[in-house]
């Protein structure tokens, strides 16, 4: 019996510890794994109207990070909910089981739903749909780093597609600090060995920050630099999202 179990073919499982040696990020002149410059974002692909059943939806692809967000409602709040003279926003972020290199690893991001809620709530005119609920469901198809910023930007695009009234589009960008360098829009490889990260969610034309998180040790001048970098990228991303919406609107008119 013992001999049999020893010869039985074992299932292949890629062990992440045996990967190629970690790239050295601390040098001054290293090249990012995908060949980008330090302050260069990944090319963004955005489309609205990805799901037919939803009142609004959007698909976003930033490098390998692929996200789909659908917005349902405004619809009547559940009977159990108390009366409220402003609308409710319900957000949920989930990962597909195949989104990460190890199966089912994406489920350890329980806080993302609450963070998405907070990032969007300040931008939506909740007074415009009293007694009702808007559901925002985000699904990460492939996780390739900077997942939450992509989810947030994509969700605001889906909300705009659904015709929910907002003060402004919400855009989000993160930076990683690796040694003495600041790297914008990090991929998974860079995120896994970062010394710290900063994520900003902003409404570019109102110049307001709706969500902000920071990890790792930072000095004040470095925070200044990173915030400026993020806000600039946010306003650029806002322009791309706007043009995407305009394109969709002009295509539907024809």
């Amino acid at each position, binding site marked *: 019996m013992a001999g049999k179990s020893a010869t039985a073919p074992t299932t292949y499982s890629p062990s992440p510890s045996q990967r190629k040696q970690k790239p050295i990020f601390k040098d001054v002149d290293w090249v990012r794994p995908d060949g980008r410059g330090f302050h260069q974002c990944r090319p963004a692909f955005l489309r609205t109207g990805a799901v037919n059943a939803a009142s609004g939806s959007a698909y976003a692809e930033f490098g390998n990070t692929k996200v789909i967000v659908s917005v349902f409602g405004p619809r009547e709040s559940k009977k159990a909910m108390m009366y409220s003279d402003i609308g409710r926003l319900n957000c949920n972020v989930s990962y597909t089981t195949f989104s990460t290199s190890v199966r089912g690893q994406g489920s350890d991001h329980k806080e993302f739903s609450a963070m998405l809620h907070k990032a969007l709530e300040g931008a939506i005119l909740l007074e415009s749909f009293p007694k009702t609920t808007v559901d925002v469901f985000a699904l990460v198809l492939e996780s390739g780093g900077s997942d939450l910023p992509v989810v947030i930007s994509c969700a605001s695009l889906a909300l705009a597609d659904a015709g929910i009234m907002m003060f402004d589009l919400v855009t989000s960008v993160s930076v990683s600090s690796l040694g003495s360098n600041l790297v914008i829009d990090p991929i998974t490889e860079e995120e896994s060995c970062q010394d710290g990260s900063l994520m900003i969610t902003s409404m570019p034309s109102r110049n307001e920050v709706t969500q902000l998180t920071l990890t790792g*040790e930072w000095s004040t001048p470095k925070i200044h630099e990173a915030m400026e970098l993020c*806000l600039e990228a946010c306003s650029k991303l806002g322009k791309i999202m706007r043009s995407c919406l305009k394109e969709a609107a002009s295509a539907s008119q024809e």
Partner: protein
Amino acid sequence: MVGLSAGEKHFLQGGIAQDLRSDGRKRLTYRPISVETGVIPQANGSARVRIGATDVIASVKAELGKPNPLQPDKGKVSIYVDCSPTAAPMFQGRGGEELSTELSVALQRSLLGGKSGAGAGIDLSSLIVVEGKICWDLYIDGLVVSADGNLLDVLGAAIKAALSNTGIPKVNISAAASPEEQPEVDISDEEFLQFDTSGVPVIVTLTKVGRHYIADATSEEESQMSSAVSFSINRHGHICGLTKRGGAGLDPSVILDMISVAKHVSEQLMTELDSKISAAEAYEAES
């Protein structure tokens, strides 16, 4: 939820605008802090911290475990906060669960540093016993006994006090027969190693009410906030974590101003907390 009448709200906001809050404090003063250490005998370290009517208990338990194969030279720390429904009825069910996750994530963000372990308040490499084989797993649990605003700051202070109260047993390793085998360990129950807490940051939450921000908001004041930002700041004045709460947007320049105010407040809080912790430990040693 705190129900306030229009008059009460006006009184509260007016007081904050004039730098005299309803309990007589200035905008940036904390309520009186009291610290007790060693409150839970079963844990390796514990503390109870009260700031005003907010009361929390933090406990630290250490268990031997196996390090993560991706990080063979580091121990593991998990932080979990429990908001018991005995503190407030709104903590029952989903409301409490959401708050617990939010607080746990915010504490992990401020204490554990970046993915590479840089800037962590708790030095993970000090938890290793045999590289790649045995390490200490620290389980830090916070319990909210009574909530009257500013939970995150109080939890941060309680964890800091509990960590400085923590003694990790000395481990004797008998040489393993071969490098493949798990080495045998002998945990001493007499000798304890003190945990280095000089790098553990304090958390300062600034709550924005109207145009001003206040430190250590009570739950009444929190009900009037537009947004709040929690900063965790270490002894060197470096920011180790930052979390924004509340939906309203903030101007970037306001955030930068808040950082410099928070730094100033954190220095005072750090000194006060240090003296309170050492007083509590001296008292515990006496009794």
